[in-house]
């Protein structure tokens, strides 16, 4: 079971690398924001899996706080995209 959790963490890191291509090479700011949202969700799942690998219960609180911070940051950056001027 622990080996499967470690495999899941490595697989999620691989998909984060795939999404990082869109964050770096995206032609618009909206593409970069979509990639950042996906990477935030995947890091939440990675922290939950490492909580079960290390058998520590308090990492779940880290996942809760990370979800809230991810949503607020997405809101702020999106307001910035909608009212920005110049090159999109």
């Amino acid at each position, binding site marked *: 079971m622990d080996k499967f959790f470690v495999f899941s963490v490595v697989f999620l890191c691989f998909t984060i690398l795939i999404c990082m291509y*869109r964050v770096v090479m995206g032609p618009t700011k909206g593409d970069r924001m979509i990639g950042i949202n*996906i990477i935030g969700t*995947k890091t939440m*799942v990675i922290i939950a899996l490492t909580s*079960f690998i290390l058998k520590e219960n308090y990492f779940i*609180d880290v996942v809760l706080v990370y979800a809230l911070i991810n*949503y607020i940051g997405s809101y702020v950056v999106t307001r910035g995209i*909608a009212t920005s001027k110049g090159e999109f």
Partner: protein
Amino acid sequence: MADFLSILLISLGLFFFLVGAIGVIRFPDALTRAHGAAKSDTLGAALCIVGLMIKAGFTPVSFKLMLIVFFLWTANPTAAHMVAKAITVKKMTEER
């Protein structure tokens, strides 16, 4: 049996994560990327966390994971909608 069900749900979640990542690369436009990424990402995270809940059993850890699932099912589609609305507003103000 619980371990088997947990492994099955987490494997389904990883599959949806991979499909969403491939869709973010392959789709041609920003709005189609937002459309394909948000749903697959939400479903994959929910399936992974429900699999961890089955592994944890009836503990406070399982309750916290349930709170995470409820918040994520509310927050992730609204964040995708905000991004798509910002892209649309920006495109309309550029064409004007």
